[in-house]
C-alpha cells in the first residue's frame, strides 16, 4: 500500500475520563492489559502496509511520546518516512488551547500535509479500539471512484452527543450528516475515519483556513455534500469507544468475552504495542483466577475474578479482586477486597483495605496513589 499516508488525531482528552486522563490524553489511556488505545489505529495502518504516519498531538502528550517512541515497535522507525509526531506551532495569532476540531488540527499541520509523498490519505482518531482492514476500505475507495470514503458502523457504539451519523441516498451516496445530535438517529454511526486524496484534502484545508472553519464535518463536508462524492464503508466488527470512566469500565469488561477478543486480537492482524521485557505471570499455590485477562509480569497469590490486570500487578495472599481493572504496577495488599475499581499505574492498596464501586459508577484511583 505504497500510495496511502496515515494521519492520526491524538490530541483530545475526554473530560468524562476524569482521573484516567489527568496525566495523559485519551489516546494513551492504557487498555486491554498491555495496550494503549493508540496501538489499535497505529497497528491498523501498519497492518495495511502504511509506512508514513503523522501523529497530530496538542497537549498532555508526554505519555504518548513515551509510548510510541521512535515508532520502532510498529516498524515505523525509518530512514525514509515512518512516524512523525506533529505538535502545534505556537503562533501569536491564536490563543493556545485544544484544537476546536480536526480541520483546525489539519490546518495546523498544513505544511506537513503538502509534503506528503502519497496520493491518498487515511485519517482517523487514535483513541478507538478496533481492528479493521484499512486495505479493504482503500480497495473500496478506489473501486467506487468516490472522492471521500467514510467508515461507518450499523451498530451504534457511542453516545449521540459525541458522535456523527451519516444519511445516504438511494444510490448509496452520503447526502446528509447529523453531528452530535441530542437523540440517537436511525442512521449508521460515523467512525470518524476517512480516506481522501491528498489533492482534495489540501483544497479543503486551504478553503477552511481561509474561512476559519475548524470542523471537518461541518466546515468541509456538509457544505460540499452535493458536490463531493462521499460514500460510506460499513465496518461490522467490534468498536471500543472510550468517552467516560463508565465507558472505559464497560469496554474493559467486553474484553472478557471471547468473541470480542477474537475480533480485536485477530492473529492475522496483530495489535502491536510497546515492547516490554516482562517475564511470565506467576500464580501462587493458593491463588485463584476466574474469567480474567492477565498480562505478563504479574504475581498472583490471592483471588482474581472477572478482572483485567496490566503488567507487573501484584495481588497478595488473601486479597480478593473482582470486576476490576488494575493498571501497570498496581499492588493489592494482603487481605484487601476490591470490586468495580479501576486503579491507574502504580497504585498501592495497603493491607486489609476494602474498596467497592458499582458497575454504573466504578471507582477510579489516580496514578501512584497510596490507599
Amino acid at each position, binding site marked *: 500500500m505504497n500510495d496511502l499516508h496515515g494521519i492520526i488525531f491524538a490530541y483530545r482528552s475526554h473530560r468524562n475520563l476524569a482521573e484516567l486522563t489527568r496525566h495523559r490524553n485519551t489516546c494513551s489511556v492504557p487498555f*486491554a*492489559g*498491555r495496550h494503549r488505545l493508540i496501538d489499535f489505529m497505529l497497528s491498523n495502518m501498519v497492518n495495511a502496509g502504511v509506512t508514513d504516519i503523522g501523529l497530530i498531538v496538542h497537549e498532555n502528550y508526554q505519555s504518548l511520546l513515551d509510548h510510541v517512541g521512535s515508532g*520502532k515497535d510498529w516498524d515505523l522507525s525509518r530512514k525514509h518516512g515512518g512516524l512523525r509526531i506533529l505538535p502545534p506551532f505556537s503562533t501569536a495569532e491564536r490563543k493556545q488551547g485544544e484544537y476546536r476540531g480536526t480541520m483546525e488540527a489539519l490546518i495546523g499541520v498544513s505544511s506537513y500535509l503538502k509534503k506528503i509523498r502519497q496520493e491518498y490519505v487515511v485519517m482517523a482518531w487514535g483513541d478507538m479500539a478496533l481492528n479493521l482492514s484499512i486495505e479493504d476500505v482503500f480497495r473500496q475507495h478506489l473501486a467506487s471512484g468516490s472522492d471521500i470514503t467514510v467508515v461507518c458502523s450499523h451498530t451504534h457504539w457511542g453516545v449521540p452527543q459525541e458522535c456523527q451519523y451519516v444519511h445516504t441516498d438511494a444510490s448509496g451516496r452520503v447526502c446528509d450528516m447529523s453531528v452530535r445530535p441530542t437523540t440517537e438517529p436511525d442512521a449508521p454511526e460515523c467512525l470518524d475515519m476517512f480516506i481522501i486524496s491528498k489533492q482534495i484534502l489540501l483544497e479543503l484545508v486551504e478553503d477552511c483556513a481561509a474561512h476559519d472553519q475548524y470542523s471537518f464535518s461541518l466546515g468541509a463536508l456538509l457544505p460540499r455534500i452535493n458536490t463531493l462524492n462521499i460514500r460510506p464503508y460499513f465496518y461490522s466488527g467490534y468498536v471500543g469507544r472510550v468517552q467516560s470512566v463508565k465507558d472505559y469500565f464497560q469496554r474493559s469488561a467486553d474484553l*472478557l468475552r*471471547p468473541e470480542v*477478543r477474537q475480533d*480485536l*486480537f485477530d492473529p492475522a492482524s*496483530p*495489535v*502491536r*504495542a510497546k*515492547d516490554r*521485557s*516482562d*517475564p*511470565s*505471570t*506467576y*500464580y*501462587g*499455590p*493458593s*491463588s*485463584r*483466577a*476466574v*474469567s*480474567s*485477562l*492477565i*498480562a*505478563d*509480569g504479574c*504475581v498472583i497469590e490471592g483471588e482474581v475474578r472477572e478482572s*483485567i*490486570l496490566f503488567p507487573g500487578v501484584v495481588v497478595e495472599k488473601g486479597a480478593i479482586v473482582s470486576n476490576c481493572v488494575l493498571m501497570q504496577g498496581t499492588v493489592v495488599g494482603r487481605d484487601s477486597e476490591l470490586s468495580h475499581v479501576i486503579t491507574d499505574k502504580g497504585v498501592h492498596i495497603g493491607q486489609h483495605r476494602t474498596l467497592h464501586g458499582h458497575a454504573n459508577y466504578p471507582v477510579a484511583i489516580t496514578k501512584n496513589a497510596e490507599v
Partner: protein
Amino acid sequence: MKKECVAMLLAGGQGSRLYALTSHVAKPAVPFGGKFRIIDFPLSNCVNSGIDTVGVLTQYRPLELNSYIGSGQPWDLDRSDGGVHILPPYMREGDQGTWYKGTANAIYQNIGFLDMYDPEYVVILSGDHIYKMDYSKMVEHHKQVDAACTISVLEVTMEEATRFGIMNVDENDIVYEFEEKPPQPKSNLASMGIYVFTWSKLREYLIADEADPNSSNDFGKNIIPNMLCAGEKLAAYRFHGYWKDVGTIDSLWDANMDMLAPRTSIDLYDPSWPIYARTPIKPPHFIGPNGVVSHSLVTGGSEVYGTVENSILFHSVTVEEGAQVRYSILMPGVTVRAGAKIEYAIIAENAVVEQNACVGTPPDPSNPDWGVAVVAGGVTVGEQAVVSAHAMVRENVKGGEQV
C-alpha cells in the same frame, strides 16, 4: 573501533542430549522459563554487564537462532559501533575452511573478527547455561590479579565434582591443576565454562593449538592445560548464585521448575538485572470461568479453561475445559484438548494433544525407567492415545495408540 572487552558466545552445539527438542533448532534457541530462550541469559548478562560487542558463533541449524537474534534490538545490541554479530564458519581462498572443529577452533576461525575490535579482553561464554552474572566484575578480577586467563568456578558437592572439570587452586585461588571429571576430586571448584582471556595471550595459544594436528581444539581439553603447562597465570573466579547447565532433558525440566521458586533460583522479576527476550505481540492471557491455575507461570496469548498446576506455559498455549496439566512445560503454541492429561512432560512448540490423550506419569519408584516424557514440536498425539513416562515422541501418535 577498539573495544576493551568483546564477548564470544559459543552457540553452535547441537545439544544432542536434548533429542527431539533440538531436532529443528540449536540448543541455545530452545525455549526456557515461559518467556525466554536459553541464549537470552548470556546475551542479557552481556548487556547488563556493559559489554556491547558480542560475537555469536553458530553452526548447527542456525536458521531459527539467526532470525531470533536478528539485529539484536531486544537486547539493545543493535549498535552502530559493536553490537551483536552472527559468526558462522566460512570458506577461504583456495577451497579452504572447515566447520568449527571445537570450541577453541571456533574462536580461532574468528581471529579476524576479534582483531577488528582489537580488545584487551575476550569473554568466552556458552549458550546452554541459565544464570545471572555480572561479567564486568569477573573482568575486574582478571585485571586485578593480572591473569592470562580467569575461569569462573562454582562450588559443588564432592559427589557432583566427578561430573565437572575441576580446578585445583592455591590459597590465592590461582589454578595449579585442572582435572576433567576426576574420579577422586581434590577440590570442589567446578568450571562453569565461562572464561576471560587477555586477548593477546589467547591469540598466541589459539594459533599454536591450531598448528597441533593432535589437538581436539577445545578450551577445556587443550587451551587451558597448555596455558597451565606453560606457566601462565590462571585465576579462579568464584561465582555464588544460581547456575544450571540445561544440556539434558532432566536438567532442562528441573531448571524450568526452578523458575517457580524465584527465592532459590533466579528472580526473573528483578528490575535491576532484566533478562531480555524477543517476544511476539500477544494479548494478555485469559483464565476461563472454570480454569484453575496454581504455582505456575502463564504467558501472553494463552487461554486456560482447564487445570494447570506446577507448570510452565509459554505464549499462545491453549488448555481446554477438563484438561489437566501438572509438572509440565508447554512451549509456545501448544494445544491441549478437552479431557487430556499431561504430567511430568515437555511438549514442544505447536504440538497438539488431542481429547482424552495421556502424556507422561508421576514419578514411579517401582519403575527404574521412569523419566520426563517429551513430545517434539508440531507433533499430534491422537485422541485417547497414551504416551508413557520417559517416551520421546518425534512423530504423530495415532488415536488410541500407546507409545
